[in-house]
């Protein structure tokens, strides 16, 4: 596979991760396009030290962080019409979470927790891979993951147990 073929093959995963990070379809694809343009411009410098996909994720994450710094969106709320996926209705509430609730809750996570949770839970990266992609120590990754999961649990109204008595304030979560 050439670098370009590798890049092309990574687009679906990049889109999935970007969509989950950004929520908005167009803005997510903007992020992916930006990432692709950068990667393509630097493809001749690619030394082949590791998977192309990991390189792309790093570019995407860095770009995402740039965007976050430019226009941070603390707890941006989501209009129902923004949902591109019709959440499953009914069903066994014990067995499955309401997707809209999860989507809303994800949007209210701090960016660094969202990055961490999605790279592991959605993209299936190992902790070592995830820490490397996010350029953070593994311990930091683990604590972000734990906080992200606890916050998500709290925000989806399924908080149980004494570890979550801090309340939903974002300040306390950071």
């Amino acid at each position, binding site marked *: 596979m050439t670098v*370009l073929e590798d*890049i*092309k093959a990574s*687009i*679906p*995963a990049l*889109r*999935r991760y970007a*969509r*989950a990070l950004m929520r908005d379809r167009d803005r997510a*694809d903007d992020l*992916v*396009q930006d990432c*692709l*343009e950068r990667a*393509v411009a630097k*493809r001749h410098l690619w030394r082949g030290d590791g998977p192309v996909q990991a390189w792309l994720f790093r570019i995407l994450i860095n770009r995402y962080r740039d965007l976050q710094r430019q226009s941070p969106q603390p707890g941006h709320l989501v209009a129902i019409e923004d949902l591109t*996926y019709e959440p*499953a209705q009914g069903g066994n509430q014990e*067995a*499955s*979470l309401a*997707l809209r609730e*999860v*989507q809303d809750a*994800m949007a209210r996570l701090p960016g660094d927790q969202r990055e961490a*949770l*999605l790279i*592991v*839970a*959605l993209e299936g990266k*190992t*902790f070592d891979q995830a820490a490397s992609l996010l350029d953070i120590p593994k311990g930091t990754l*683990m604590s972000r*993951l*734990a906080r992200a*999961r*606890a916050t*998500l*649990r709290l925000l989806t109204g*399924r908080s*149980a*147990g004494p570890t979550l008595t801090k309340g939903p304030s974002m300040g306390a979560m950071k």
Partner: protein
Amino acid sequence: MTDQTALTDAELLDYAAGQLPAEVMATIAARLADDPAARATLAEWQRQNAALEALYQPVAREPVPDRLTDVIRRAEAEDAAKATGRPRARLWLVAATIAALAVGAGAGWFARDLTAPLAASQTLAANAMRAYETYVVEVAHPVEVAASDADHLNAWMSKRLGQETRPPDFAAAGFTLMGGRIVPSDQGAAALYMYDNAQGQRITLYIAPQGASSTTAFQFAQQGATSSFYWMDRDLSYAVVGTVPREVLRSIALAAYDQLI
């Protein structure tokens, strides 16, 4: 194992990820049996994973928007253009050779070693560029023998190089012969012809003998603003040097090749 402390988040994360040695996994599994809160946490995490999967996994199966695949397509087209650009130049050289042979240029040489980069050819470029730098700045004596004295120039150059040598005509590229001089080279006397155009830009053609017969394709060298196309053809090596745009220099090199074979 009922007296164990509650499992920590870190332990649970590792356990959920299955990224622990088998014996540690077994130990945690045993402790989970007595830790309903931890079991509930694990179950909740699994539901979170399932929800995230349900929300975003479909994105990866969507058709990729054109504006994203276009980025790749453009790059592929660029690479393809670059990849075919070089062979086309070589094909041109082969074609020129065949054409030259067809008009009876005599001893056949074949398109061998066309791409082999030779140390000797790099020396050639360096010598030719040095000669250019030395003489192109001359106002009073840019050449030893002026173009107006063509017979003398041709006789002299042919004698010193040991074979019939005449300067090619670059009028098509707008350059006319000023004259020539003899300059030193690694293999004895070399000819340096100088040309200029209406704007006063100067280029040189350097022709040096070679120790051994060899043939190469055109090669390009650049040093600061000065660039050179150079090549070897049987027992002579050639280099055109100038500060003109690369395409202009290239057309001059092609004209020289055509006329000198």
